């Protein structure tokens, strides 16, 4: 498994570059608090790295989900749409947001690995 992290607290699992899974980290869900709504992108839509591809809202705030790399949305998590609390209870597996077909898989090299992300949290 090849999981990378963004400075904005998304994770991307690019085990399959044609269908890389994106979600938010434990730190992100903890900072947000109880998630009550997610706005997921349309399947087939394409985004550039850093563009807003979705929104996650807790009782107290809304936050944008940024695209970790250029790509096209190939799947969204309907279970998360139905039960947004999955983003809190299981952010790294059942609470995934969407899957993308990576346009430039090499972009992932610039993202953080687990060690670098943990370091980012320590210094936050």
């Amino acid at each position, binding site marked *: 498994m090849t999981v990378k992290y963004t400075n*904005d607290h998304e994770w991307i699992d690019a085990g399959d570059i044609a269908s890389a899974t994106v979600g938010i980290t434990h730190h992100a869900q903890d900072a947000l*608090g109880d998630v009550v709504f997610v706005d997921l992108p349309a399947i087939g839509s394409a985004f550039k790295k850093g563009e807003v591809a979705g929104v996650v809202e807790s009782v107290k705030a809304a936050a944008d989900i940024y695209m970790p790399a250029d790509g096209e949305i190939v799947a969204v998590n309907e279970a998360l749409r139905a039960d947004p609390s999955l983003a809190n209870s299981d952010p790294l597996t059942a609470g995934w947001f969407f899957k993308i077909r990576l346009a430039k898989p090499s972009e992932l090299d610039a993202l953080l690995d687990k060690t670098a992300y943990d370091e980012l949290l320590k210094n936050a």
Partner: protein
Amino acid sequence: MSPDGSPAAPLSPDALLKTPLFDLHVELGAKMVPFAGYSMPVSYPQGILAEHRQCRDSAVLFDVSHMGQLRLEGPGAASALETLVPVDIVDLGVGKQRYALFTNASGGILDDLMVTRRGDHLFLVVNASCKAADIAHLRERVGNACRVVPMPERALLALQGPKAVDAMSRLAPALARLTFMSGGAASIAGIACFATRSGYTGEDGFEISVAADDAAALARALLAEPEVRPAGLGARDTLRLEAGLCLYGHDIDTATSPVEAALSWAIQKVRRSGGARAGGYPGAALIDAQLAQGASRKRVGMVGLDRVPVREGAAIVDDTGASIGNVTSGTVGPTVGQPIAMAYVAAAHAKPGGIVQAEVRGKRQPMRVVAMPFAPHRYFRG
């Protein structure tokens, strides 16, 4: 991921004030955030939703010691305060409490507050963010007619929820017999307190003023009761919003009048045009005119017909896309289970039942204008 709204630059932690319960909050695992110059608990490990439900189902304890407490002393205190608020203070009986508003010369709201008449003085509770300005305002305007005495040596706890009275019955039976919007002095678990039957959640409950030195012991005694768990400012906000209660600086401010804010109920007949003590407070002419003719815009409640939360700052438009107002508070109501919001809208759109559109991220979300509260008040009126 990043928050949409960029909050004001936080003060350095050292610059933040601490309430007497700071160490207890940390011990309980609270997430502390800067609020009105204080480090305050936004939530505890159970989270905002669980704390909200705990308050609706049982009882919670809030630390609201950041709020301003003060006394107005002297025989002229009630008449003096009436020169600053459109509220009947002179006729307020001993032990009775009333909601009041400091107004400005243009009829806007400087702050909202609670006033309780005690035997020999008036006891005021004002918003944390306004307290310095309120004290300056009182000293400047009525400092010659009464003594303005800030009470920084006091802490304030709010015990809220349908079972708050069960806990109180065990610790201070006399206070458990108070009715809504009245207050009395008693000792709770052996600690001298002044409590009122009031709150900011729509539920039955108490607000308890206590010496700062005794606050932690009192909080521990209340939290030891089986009904009671701690709750933070996050749940306090969702609870007050479901109860339709205004948050100063958001739903009311210097640019909103009491009539626009749908707070006309707080202006008693005796202070209105034709009343025995009509006017005589800042902005009275404007407010009286609005009471007679209505205001051009009004604070309303709205419920989302879709699931998308609608938050402060969202524009409200009619079916043609014309701007008719804006949202001042909004969330997904944990008890009502739907997006709820307060907004100011043009008077023509303020009637319950109408549908308006809230603009969220470029899309229109239909919302129904409804009467507030969103969750029914459950006050104990005796």
